[in-house]
């Protein structure tokens, strides 16, 4: 097998270069900008698909650049990377379409799309990082790229949310930096190895436990593990496409992806188990799952409810990582994709409601299913998926998590899943109920889009329909060979290879 160098770089550049070009494109050059961004997204997706095919046939993609003493910048495409990078690339395309329509007529669009693309580039970098340092670098770059998106509206509230976001994420980043530097000083280069790079080294267990804790805290900030989640609900002031991206693809996923990397490719399952760090991580994740759900239940603002839901749902991935055994791991990994599809659908739909009818609160959603049936169908599918109702994607995740936990004797995890399912239902079903089963009372808060043919602009409508259908398909066709589940099984087969 040959080592291909250009492709990982090309995947990152496919969004980085157009991103930078955006900034210097005049604000009024709308058509050019749309064409540029969509073309870039399509190109990136194509490249990723090429890489996907290559990786599944055993091709090796790696670039290595010297950056620091005994620490290289390594981009390496393995199965796990591809899981994440494919998700981000495909959702980027849809989100770009969505954002074009969503931000139609607003100011600072060049800036928005510029940072949007940078954000995706950083995400691709995180996905393709071949060692812990590279992961850290792109992780921090992601913080920088998302900050302008969070404060995009420029209001006092947005700026305050941005401050909070930075306070959390930069602190987390510093914790991570210290942990990485410490680990590097103990074992040298930190290139990811399936089964754990620490397998080859003998290091004091106490130190490893402390470093593990630091790493989890560092990544846990972005993954919004309770109590490190404070920034996430506040970051909801950002425009809907940003929330969609933040929650489904970029930021929270980056955090949890880091945890997955740490557990599997840095520590390795055996070492992590013998250190006894996975149990606390599982508890950490479980607390997050329950707490996030309870808080979601208390929100009337739709986007906040979704935000707390993210807090809860993303912790499934961490939970799947922390529970031993291949089955739960499959559940966690596949949820990376499944949660992405479902959550992005929910945010698209929430954005549609806000943009089309001015609806921001659950209490304003009465009868909206009749006004926007397609949007609400997508919303319902995604919400049901979040609850874990078969055959939608979320069910597959939960099934594997539960099965995996039970098969290693961690029955309590099943309890967590049950509580969480009930709570999920408790905060999602009322929205669905209000939309479909209640009569609309007053005129909508602010009806701004009125089209005869369809309920809203097609570019706002198409993305949620596609992602909603994808969420359904990912579950319904999970047994197929092209499903995220099949890919997650492929990854796990490598991680658990003796």
């Amino acid at each position: 097998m040959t080592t291909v160098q250009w492709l990982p770089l090309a995947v990152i550049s496919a969004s980085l270069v157009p991103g930078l070009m955006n900034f210097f494109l005049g604000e009024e050059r709308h058509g050019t900008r749309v064409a540029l961004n969509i073309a870039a997204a399509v190109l990136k997706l194509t490249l990723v698909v090429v890489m996907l095919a290559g990786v599944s046939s055993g091709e090796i993609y790696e670039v290595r650049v010297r950056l620091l003493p005994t620490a290289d910048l390594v981009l390496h495409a393995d199965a796990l990377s591809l899981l994440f990078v494919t998700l981000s690339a495909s959702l980027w395309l849809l989100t770009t379409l969505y954002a074009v329509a969503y931000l139609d007529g607003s100011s600072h669009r060049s800036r928005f799309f510029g940072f949007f693309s940078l954000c995706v580039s950083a995400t691709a970098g995180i996905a393709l990082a071949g060692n812990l340092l590279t992961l850290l670098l792109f992780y921090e770059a992601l913080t920088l790229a998302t900050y302008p998106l969070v404060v995009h509206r420029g209001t006092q509230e947005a700026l305050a949310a941005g401050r909070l976001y930075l306070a959390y994420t930069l602190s987390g980043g510093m914790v991570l930096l210290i942990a990485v530097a410490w680990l590097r000083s103990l074992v040298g280069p930190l290139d990811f190895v399936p089964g754990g790079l620490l397998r080859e080294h003998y290091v004091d267990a106490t130190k490893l436990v402390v470093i593990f804790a630091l790493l989890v805290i560092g990544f846990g900030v972005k993954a919004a593990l309770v109590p490190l989640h404070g920034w996430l609900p506040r970051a909801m002031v950002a425009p809907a496409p940003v929330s969609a991206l933040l929650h489904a693809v970029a930021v929270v996923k980056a955090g949890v992806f880091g945890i997955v990397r740490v557990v599997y490719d840095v520590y390795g399952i055996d070492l992590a188990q013998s250190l006894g760090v996975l149990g606390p991580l599982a508890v950490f994740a479980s607390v997050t799952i329950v707490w996030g759900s309870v808080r979601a239940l208390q929100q009337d603002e739709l986007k906040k409810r979704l935000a707390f839901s993210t807090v809860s749902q993303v912790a499934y991935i961490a939970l799947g990582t922390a529970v031993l055994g291949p089955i739960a791991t499959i559940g966690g990994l596949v949820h990376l994709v499944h949660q992405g599809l479902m959550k992005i659908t929910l945010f698209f739909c929430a954005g549609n409601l806000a943009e089309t009818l001015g609806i921001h609160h659950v209490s304003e959603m009465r009868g909206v299913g009749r006004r926007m049936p397609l949007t609400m169908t997508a919303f319902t599918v995604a919400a049901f998926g979040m609850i874990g109702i078969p055959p939608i994607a979320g069910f597959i995740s939960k099934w594997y998590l539960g099965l995996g936990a039970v098969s290693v004797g961690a029955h309590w995890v099943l309890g967590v899943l049950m509580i969480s399912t009930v709570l999920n239902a408790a905060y999602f079903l009322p929205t669905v109920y209000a939309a479909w089963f209640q009569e609309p009372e007053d005129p909508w808060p602010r009806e701004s889009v009125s089209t005869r043919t369809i309920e809203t602009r097609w570019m706002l409508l198409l993305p949620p329909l596609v992602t909603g259908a994808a969420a359904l398909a990912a579950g319904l066709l999970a047994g197929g060979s092209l499903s995220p589940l099949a890919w997650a099984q492929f990854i796990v087969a490598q991680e658990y290879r003796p």
Partner: protein
Amino acid sequence: MPLGIDDALPFAVVLPAVAAVAAVVMPHWGRAVGLVGGLMTAAAVVVIAFGNRVGGPIRYALGGWPAPLGIELAADGLAVVMLALVATVMLTAGVYALRYFDHDGGAEPALFWPLALLLWTGLNALALSADAFNVYVTLEVVSLAGVGLCALGGRGEAIVAALRYLLAGMLASLLYLLGVALLYVEHGTLDIATLAQVAVTGAAGFVAVPCILAGLALKAALFPLHFWLPAAHANANAPVSALLSALVVKAALYLVLRWWLAGLGMGLGPILVQLLGALGAAAVLWGSVQALVAARLKLSVAYSTVAQMGYLFLLFPLAANPTTASTAWAGIVYLVVAHGLAKAALFLASGSVLRAHGHDRLGELAGLLPRSPITKFAIGLSGVSLIGLPFSGGFVGKWLLLNAAIVSGQWWWVALIFAGSLLAAAYVFRIVALLFAQSESPIDVAPQHSPMLMELPALGLALAAVGLGFAYPALESTLALPDMLGDHAR
């Protein structure tokens, strides 16, 4: 006699001096003289850098007299780094100044070019000197040129600040000289390399070394002796602020590095190095806090210099450990350069902001910052380097220091870097947030557009600061500790 590469050393000192004199003599040709002289000096620096890269440290005896009596110039890795930094910032600030002084109809102060060139002379001479007394003279030249620039064309506050700057600077120089004099009393030599080895062995050394360190600390504005810096840097003209913050304070630090490199650090003992580190830590924390609460943009940036200078004093505790010496060393030098570039960029960008709005009160700048993305990027990117986020020169420096702290087991400095970075992020993003804030007043006061010649230099420096993050492999051999020891630690 054909010119060798070593002949470039005197040129690096003499060329700007000649240009300075020419600029005084021909005030109307100030710019042309400045630019031509600057470019020629830069060319000499390039030659020196090339020579150093190819053949290692370069030495040149002025007038043919060898070291003890004559004046000897020497360019090792550290000197080359310093020369290059000076040349980069000088030239960029010079280009910036072309439009800064005149674009709203004002006139360029007649003394700008002469003083800037004089400053360049002093800095280059400082970088190339190895003699404790010559260093004093160059330090004074740098000080005086700096004070002159600071007062240039400025009104009230700038003059007041310049006067205080002068007094503090002189006090510092004389303290340093007192220390040197005491050492001379004891050891009868002025060679830094020799003195540093024996400094703390003699009785006089117990007073002399503290005098030298205190003098340099005062010049480098180490907390709590930073009182002169914020006003001086914040009230000067923007290109001057850039020079002062990026280069002039570094001159004192450069001397610290020289003394340390020559062996002074090893003689100080574990407690004193920690004490100096503690002062540095206090500077990082206090400077950052002040940058965070400052009401004006340039003042905030100036306090950031106080904070960043504090990091550099971590050299003492971190490099005192032999295993981490080279890492810490490389980290400090990296930070010096990264901070120089980033800070200059930030001051230049602040100057554009201030020019466009007529003031730089942070509370009133929301949403009114320049429309052009160039200055915004300059502010953002230099901020990234100041915080030490990837990918930037600041990150590399911080990473190296962090590694040194961890490997040598000095966890308290890890904590400091942690806190310092977050505080830096706090004050940088306080400024960056303004770029995204909505204008509070409904009437959008259309800011004047800054000329490209003011925006591009800032962006260029900021890009350089960020690009430095990728340059470590290329610079590694230059930064390596043994090489640095080169000539001076005979």
